[in-house]
């Protein structure tokens, strides 16, 4: 069990690391997906321990993740059309 929790934690940290360091908005999406999957692993592990029905949580999370990915990708397309890049560190017109 610790092993899977460890994997979850590592996945989460990798996801967080990507979010905190990568300039590309797409990478941000990847990082978030990794974080969501880390949570999913935890969920499945704990469900096995306590109540198997709660594995359903992971299924719902996947659906939500897809929905979010759709929105972000659509947004990225629009952004690319307008700015010709998707680097979030260059998106700083709105500030202070």
């Amino acid at each position, binding site marked *: 069990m610790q092993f899977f929790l460890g994997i979850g934690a590592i996945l989460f940290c990798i996801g967080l690391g990507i979010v905190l360091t990568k300039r590309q908005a797409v990478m941000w999406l990847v990082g978030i997906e990794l*974080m969501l999957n880390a949570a999913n692993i935890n*969920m499945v592990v704990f469900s096995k321990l306590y*109540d198997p029905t709660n594995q359903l949580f992971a299924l*719902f999370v996947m659906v939500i993740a897809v929905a*979010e990915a759709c929105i972000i990708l659509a947004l990225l397309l629009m952004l690319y059309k307008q*700015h010709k890049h998707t680097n979030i560190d260059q998106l700083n017109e*709105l500030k202070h």
Partner: protein
Amino acid sequence: MKQLFSNPFIESFAHRFENIYQSVGFLLPEAALLAGIVLLLLLAISTRKAYGLRLAFWAVAIMMASLFAQLFFLVGQLRSLPDEAPLYLMADTLCVFHPLQIQARIALNLGALLFGVVFLFELLGHYRKESVEWLFWALSALLGLDLLLLSAHFLTFYMSFELSSIATYFLLSVGRQRRQHEALMKYVLFGAFASALMLYGISWIYGLAGSIEFTQAAFWQHLQAAPSLWLYIAWALFAAGVFFKLSVVPFHFWAPDAYEGAPAMSLAFVSAIPKVAILAFMMLLNSRMAAFAALQTVWGQLLMAVALASLLLGNFIALRQHNLKRLLAYSTIAHMGTLLLPVVAAGYEGAEEVFLYYWAVYALTLFVAFALAAQQQIDQIADLRRFNHTTGAKLAWGVVAFSLAGLPPTAGFLAKLGVFVHFWKMAASHNLALLLWVTALLSTAVALAYYIKIPYALFFKQESEAGAPAGADAALLPAMMIALLLVLAILWGYPFA
């Protein structure tokens, strides 16, 4: 796998169905909303022609009808609540156990109705192509928030949370503003980031508590027994998502940027309505936690630290703002700091009333502000000094500034007074709470310095600095009515007496 199809599971499933079947009556308000959403969707896809004005009015009519139906059912539910120990289990994952749940849902409903009215007038002035879409997303967000209040289980909580988030992402994407993409990108990415943190936190809370049904006493007992550092981390990660929705420090960053780029009418919805659901949800959590002092202390300290930071940061940064929308964003952050006070002191009598009244005044004021701001050109919003208004709108702005600052003779004063008087009960016996109380009081004085900018810019500007005159102020009528209400409200005194 074997277990999945075993008999007890099927039985429990059957039991659940039974439960759902019995409690369908309690879900009528949500059914009304859902019907509205479906009708709007049908309306949107059934017309091949470009959206027409008539279509937009139909959409508003559908929205209003479903909202009124919901209100009707909600008021019925509120009336049928027994006085002592009201607890209704509706389904395993949704339940009503507290009058605040129904009150907050009514507040949500009324807020959305108001949005509909202002939107209608706004429609008369500037016809918008995307109006059906707009109302569709508003209703979806409302449904999500409504279910959020009913949730008794982290799964339903997460689902409804995401439903409202996604709906608000779309709500902010409607319309065509300069830099809207950037604003939206920041909002969506930051929101997804916060919700991922929250989900990971929830998964650990599950691990620590052994259950995700947070209405059960066992859940809290196990949680209290959990090793404290893990608990703090899990709980703080969970709080990240909530803080994002509330736009409080340190998850407030999206607010100013998103507000600047988003259309004013969407902001009228996003800046006011989700907050009541989230805050009421936090108060409900607090009431479940009441029996577990150690947990409540930690949660209370976390909230107080966040409230303190929000009050200071929101009020001080707002001093530097010239852009009206950014100003309102920082003002929102500060107001959320104030609204956390009754949440922290939820254990003391009267917290719900104080909280609902404060929120109602704040929401009404923001509606006026954004309805008026919707009439302005972008360059006018970017610099307060270029505002151009009729006398009526100037007076309404004056009321907005006074009400946000908490000055008499507006309802904002009463609301602030209620919060401070109520929080004093806690501050009198608690050091951190006293610090928070004093900070809140002093930051109110700081806040005046920037709220006064609005009437100052309107009444004392050089004539040559004024921008182009605004278009037909169709939303002026409801805005002025609400402003008048905000002034008259002080005559009634505190409505819960």
